[in-house]
Structures are given as C-alpha cells and as structure tokens.
C-alpha cells in the first residue's frame, strides 16, 4: 500500500519570533471607543485569526495595523520597530498587504492589470524609460509580468486573465484581490473577511489558497472571518474581540472551549 501522509493538521503551536506586536492599543472616534486596551502578537509564519461579533472592532484593528487609523493609545511594533503613526504606503513598503471586506479593485481594468498594480512599489525604472517603453523599462515589465503570471497560475485564474474584473462574479473578484495583495510579495498579509458572501465551493477554494500561500511562501497571515469552521481549520491561534476588548486569545481548541467566547459569540445565533 502507498504510504504517503498529507501534512500534519495545524498543531496550534505558534511558530517563529514575534513579527507584529500590538500593545495596549485603544482607538476612539469622538466619544465612541472602537478598541480599548487590546494587546496581542502575531508570530512569523502563523495564520492568526481575529474573530468577534459585529462591531467588535476587528476591521478597526486591521486598519490600525496597516495605518488607516492611528490609535490614540498604545503602540504597534512591527519587525522590532515601534511605530505610532505609520501611513498606509509606509506599511505597504515595509511588507504589509491587505484585502478588503468589500472588494476594492479597479473594476474597469483586467485581472492582469489589477494584479500588476500590486507590483507598483517594486517598480524602479524612472518615468523617462517607462514613457519610452524600451530598454530597462521593457526588461522590468517582463520581469513583473512573469511574477504576475506566477500568481495567476497559483490562483488558477488563467481563464479570466483578460476580463475586466467588474464583469467577474464576486468569488473570483475576491481571488483577484488576493492576487493583487500577493503581487506585493508581502511578509504580513491582512485578510478582511476573505470568504464573506461566497458559496461553499468558493470558500473551500479560498481556504486552500490561503493555506498554500502560508505554506509555499511562508507568508504570515492575519485574517478576520465569521465562518467558525474556516477559522478553526485554518488558524494557528485565534484572538477574540467583543465591544473593542480582547476576551480570549489562544489556539482554536482553547478559544472554542472558553466560556466567555461561547457566551459572546458562538452561542449567539447571527
């Protein structure tokens, strides 16, 4: 008989050193406290899930990490550098990529072009050569196109390469968005509800891609997700937020058994 074992299931043991450390972060909009005094860390190479009921502050948390919001208190340490006010493009060039809850693609552009925009930060040739579309600019574009094609191949979207993304079904748009984030070759990938609004088959595909990204490229992933099955299968560790507070943190098994979590989230139909 053939003895080949598929890779072990997630063991829940966190992997490398701390990549991103969130310390006592609080975020207010006027008098509304979106996040209060939340601390957790994300380690290199892990899949970290952030879960919680609606309005728990999950997306706000991601927005703090990649610089859309500046927390009033606390700080975020990324790759050993403590930062308080980091802007989105700085976060991007330091290796943080993200996808959005509502797809944020250029609807009129093709799949290829959309993914190519993810390469913008990696383009070095000056405007002069780019206008000439010759010499170094050509060489660079070919190199970038090769990277983009690798991603197209990886995400199995060859058939929609030249279709404007606005014409694509939602599930595929989500995949293109992931492709664009991957084009940045990020170290930390933030996924905001990558599976929202998908049918079962699309969800399964997406799960496979996320795991493959994590395993093949060693990309660290932080994701927000509502589907409990997905969270439990995918993630190494889970942090649970409720009303802007952290109520639990640990492996999926630990979190699943936590009474506070059950009360706040799992026990409530939604």
């Amino acid at each position, binding site marked *: *008989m*053939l*003895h*080949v*074992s*598929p*890779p072990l299931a997630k063991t829940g043991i966190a992997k490398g050193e701390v990549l991103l450390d969130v310390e006592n972060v609080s975020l207010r909009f006027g008098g509304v406290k979106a996040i209060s005094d939340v601390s957790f860390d994300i380690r290199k190479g892990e899949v970290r899930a952030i879960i919680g009921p609606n309005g728990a502050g999950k997306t706000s948390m991601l927005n703090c990490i990649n610089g859309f919001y500046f927390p009033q208190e606390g700080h975020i340490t990324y790759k050993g550098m403590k930062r308080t006010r980091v802007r989105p493009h700085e976060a991007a060039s330091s290796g943080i990529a993200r996808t959005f809850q509502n797809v944020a693609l250029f609807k009129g552009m093709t799949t290829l072009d959309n993914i190519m925009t993810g390469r913008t930060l990696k383009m070095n040739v000056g405007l002069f050569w780019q206008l000439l579309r010759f010499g170094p600019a050509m060489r660079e574009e070919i190199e970038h*196109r*090769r990277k983009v*094609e*690798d991603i*197209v*191949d*990886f995400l*199995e979207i*060859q*058939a929609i*390469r030249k279709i404007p993304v606005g014409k694509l079904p939602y599930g595929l748009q989500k995949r293109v968005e992931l492709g664009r984030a991957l084009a940045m070759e990020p170290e930390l990938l933030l996924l905001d509800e990558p599976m929202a609004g998908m049918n079962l*088959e699309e969800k*399964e595909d997406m799960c*496979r891609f996320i*795991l*493959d990204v994590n*395993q*093949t490229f060693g990309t660290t992933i932080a994701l927000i997700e509502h589907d409990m099955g997905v969270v439990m299968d995918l993630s190494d560790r889970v942090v649970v937020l409720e009303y802007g507070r952290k109520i639990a943190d640990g492996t999926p098994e630990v979190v699943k058994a936590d009474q506070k979590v059950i009360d706040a989230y799992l026990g409530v139909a939604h």
Partner: protein
Amino acid sequence: MAQAATATLDTFPKLLRRNAEVRGSKTAFRHKDLGIWQSWTWAEVYGHVRAYAVGLQSLGLKRGDKIAIVGANRPKLYWSMMAAQMIGAVPVPVYSDAIADELAYVLDHAEVSFAAVQDQEQVDKLLSVTERVPRLKTMVYDWGRGLRDYDHTHLHPIEAVIAQGRSRLSEGSDVVKALDAEIDGGHGDDLSIILYTSGTTGRSKGVMLSAGRSIAAATDTVRFDNITDADEVLAYLPLAWVGDHYLNFAQGLVAGFCTACPESADTAQADLKEIGPTFYFAPPRVFENLLTRVMIRMEDASGLKKKMFHHYIAVAKQWGEKILNGQDVPLGARLSYGLGNLLVYAPLKNALGFSKIRTAYTAGEAIGPELFSFYRSLGMNLKQLYGQTEAFLYVTAQPDGQIRADTVGPASPNVDIRIEEGTGEVLYKSPGQFIGYYKDAEKTAETMTADGYVRTGDAGFFEAGTGHLKIIDRAKDVSKLRSGDLFAPKYIENRLKFYPNIKEVVAFGQGEDYVSVFINIDLTAVGNWAERNNVVYGSYQELAGHPDVYGIIAGHVDEVNRALAAEPMMAAAQIKRFLILHKELDADDGELTRTQKVRRGFVGERYAPLVKALYDGSAEADISTEVTFEDGRKGVISARVKVKDAAQFPAAEPAGKAA
C-alpha cells in the same frame, strides 16, 4: 522511409523514435504555461521520454506493470504514457473528474502499482482511496503546488524522475543499450493500453488494446483524412476517453503532427482560438453550446451587425453546403457567399477558433440537422463518424463529399460491418479491434460472435443505395408500447434535444399506453431568455418550475409531436405527458455516464414517483433526491414537480393523400 523500416513500426515507442529521426525539429507538443505557449520538438520529446522511462524504471516500474494516468491534457501526462510504453508497462488513463469510489474501483481492478497524476487534487484523491488499492506503491506528479510538505518517500515530481533518468543515461552506455533493447523488444501483440469504458451499463470495463492493432487503425484513418505532420490539434478531450487516445495520441504519433495542450480546462476555448487547429473533434453538444453562445451574443449586438449576420447566415444556409460539396452554384450566389465569408463567416470562425480546420468530426450522439448544416454552411468540413472503444474508435466515417446529417457514413477502411438478423444490431470487425476486456473473459465472450465480430449494442440499418449506416438507438432500448407500436426512446429524445432550450431528455413508454418524457432545461439558453424577459429566478429549480418556461417547453413538445405524426412508423409514439426536472442530471449522481450519456434505467428508478405521476394522471408530484457534491459529500434536494399534457396530432394518412 524504407518499406522494411515501416513494417517494424508496430509500437508507439518505435513511432516516437521514428518521428524524432525523420522530423526531429518539428514541433510535437505545445502547452500554454504562465501565459506563454511553450513547445517541444519530436527530438526533445523523445529525449524527455527516454529519460523519463529510465527514471520510472529505477523507481521500480517494469514490463507488464500498470500505471494509472490521472489528470488533464498536459504534455507530461502524455509523456507518462509514452515512457511507460517504452519499457513495456501499460498505461491506464482514468477520468480525472471521477469521484473517489469510481476511481478506486478502476485502479484496483486494473491492478495499478504506479500512478502519474497532475497535481495535489489528484494526489489527495488517490491518497483517500489507498486502502482500496493495495498494489499502488508509487506516485509521480506534474505540478507540485501544495505538495511541498507531503512525505516524499513514495511521491516524486515528474521533473525529478526525468532528471534522474537523464543522469543515468549520461553515466553509462549500458543504460542506453538496455533502453534501446526495451524499445526494440516491444511487439505489436503487446498490450498497449487499457481504456476503461464510461460504463453506460453498470461497472466500467477495461478495454485492452494492442499496439499493433492500434497503429494499424490509426494508419488507415490518417490516410483516409490525409492527415500529415503539418496538422495540429488541441487536446482537450478526457485522457481516459478513446477519442483523445485515438485522435490525438495515436494519430499524432502515426502522422507526426503537433498536439497542443490548453492552459487549463477553463481556457480551452480561448486556447483553441490562439492555436487554430486543423483537425478537430467535438461531441454534438459542444457545437450546440458554441452556436447557442454565438446566437446569444448576436442578440446583444448592434442593429447593423445583427442584420448583416442574419442576412449572410441565410445566404450560407442556401448555398454554403452546396459550395462545400462542390455542386453547381450560380455565380451571383458565389459572389454573395464570398462577401459573406469576408464579413461574417471568416471572422466568426476565427472567433470560434475554427479558421484553419481542414477536417472536423462529431460523434457520440445524433447531431441536429440544423446544427450540422450551420457549421458546414460556414465552409467548415464537419463530418460524422461512428465508433466505440472496443473498435479503437472508427467503425464508420463519412468520406469528403458524402456528408449527411442523418447517417454516420459507410464502413471505415478495412472495417467489415454486418447487421444481425432479427435484432438489427450492428456487428463489426475492425483493424483496431480490442483483445478483450481486462479480467473479464465472460463479458468478452458475450460481446464477440463465434466468427470474431464485435457486438456494438446499437441497432441500425444500411440505407439502401448509399451504403451509409443509420443508427436508431441502443439495441436493448428499442421496445414497444402496450399497443405494440415501435418505441425508440433515443429517437424522441434527440428530436427534443435539438432545441437549444432543452439540454437533456429521458423518454419512457416501454409497455405503457403512451410516451412521456422528463426534460432538463438548458440553463444558458433559458437563463438568457429569462434575463431578456425580466423573469426573476433564484435557482435552477425555480427557473425549471416557472410557468412561462413550461409554456416554452410545451411549444417544443407540440412541434415534435407534429413531426412525429408525419412519420407513419413513429406517429403512435407522440409525447402525451411531460415534466421539467427540478435538477440537472449529473454524472456525480450516477444519472449520466462520464461521457454525459443518460442512464435511462437508473433515472427511471431514482425518480420513480415522478414516472408514476406521468402515468397516473396527477398534475404534480413530490420528489426528494440525494445529490453528491464533487468532494463526495451528500445532500438532499426536494421539490414539487408539475406534470403537463401535450397536444396530440392525428397520424399522417398513408402516402398519397397528402395535401
């Protein structure tokens, strides 16, 4: 080529070597990878396959072993077959979309010890059935994504196997000699491949084909259609199907033409356009889908374009086929057709990827006469053939100039056909004829007559005068109504299926008072109609049950009844009652075979309450059925299905009284 050398070309590895020698620098394979067409010459392929064969040998594959091939049409999987054959092992291609249970049965029955698979999906599928396939020891794969963390003791990338073989070949001349000896040691009587039939009737059977006979058959048809090494095909048909193995693999090696592999199954249509094959095969439903798509897109075109399209399609309808058949056509019509070609036909064929086609075949099901002549009128040489796995494809084929929509043509070269007295069953003897079913002497004996003819299981007759064969239906399916009138279900089903709105039909009537049918609507065509008419629907089920959809389908049924009434033999078999099924018939649920043929008996049992409702006069019936998803999980679909009556027409009076 010297005559003597040709005589010894009795195995595929020898043909591969010949191709590398006589047309080494010609392109043998293409594959679109990372958006770019990669190509390999015959000399390169021969080199790769040699190295691959040695690599497989050092993994333990030996003469007589069986190696499963699971995946889509990719060069490395074709080379896996060639490499296995080079060292005398037997490839067993398997339908890659088969569910685990079917896969396990075939792999175990074929006693495979090796498997060459496409990717992680197939590796996982095979791993999930290892307990039922105890002989399977080693797997090689083409595409490594997601497989990095798997235990690689018995799992190897094909790339590495080839590299290993190459280094062994470069090390010692005894390895080279041993491999050459293996190629020379191959014999025409050797088992070349086992193709599992799709199982229209029960479990799949392993059809054993010998190398010599396969090549003899392919040589005949290559000559019949003047196929040369200048031709090119796009390989998109399932590897496990005789059509792909014959038309692409066998004919490709015999004629030395280039086989292009699409980037993925989803891009096949776009790749077809880029490659522009010269030889093409597709089952009727592919041509039908293409035409439906063209018509739908024309609906959305501008007024001028629409007018131009319809005008020149009418011109083509009137003159196109005549021009293609070389008949006398007035000069004015020729000019008009020429202009139409410039404005409509050529761009249309280009959009479909049919610009360079010299010969195209369709087979497997009856093709609608309208559909058939549509493509022919555009100047595309579309022909019909009739064949089966046991014959290694061709039994009959239409020669150029004798093309008809309602026949499958005269016997192919060197094929001998006989119609059995009484049953009307078609029997044949052909050059490519199979050796027998693998490990099933009983079935083999049932299929062969005492004097060596093979039973097709199809009923048919030779048309007087032309010698063309006409197939009516499966021999066992032709039956009688209670009144004793003839009931040929396929004949009725096909009539209905010629309507674009209807995808699948199952007719009942054996031993009953009248004929009734299940209908599956075509989601593309009916969905488009719904969109244009602001009909809102949430699911297939809802659309299928829509009263207006019932109205449309009733119209089609009436037209068919009117046509049946005009044929004295069939008038009694008019459709009296029909219903539209709430779900699409699906191969995963066992309702269709893997080649998309309806398994009528199974459908009848599965939907017994609906069949009952067709005959007890009720206006609706409840049904709940279990469905299988692609990953093997099961769910239940239930519905209340309406049954409608169809208009009946008086039978035509015997000839002579027609108005």
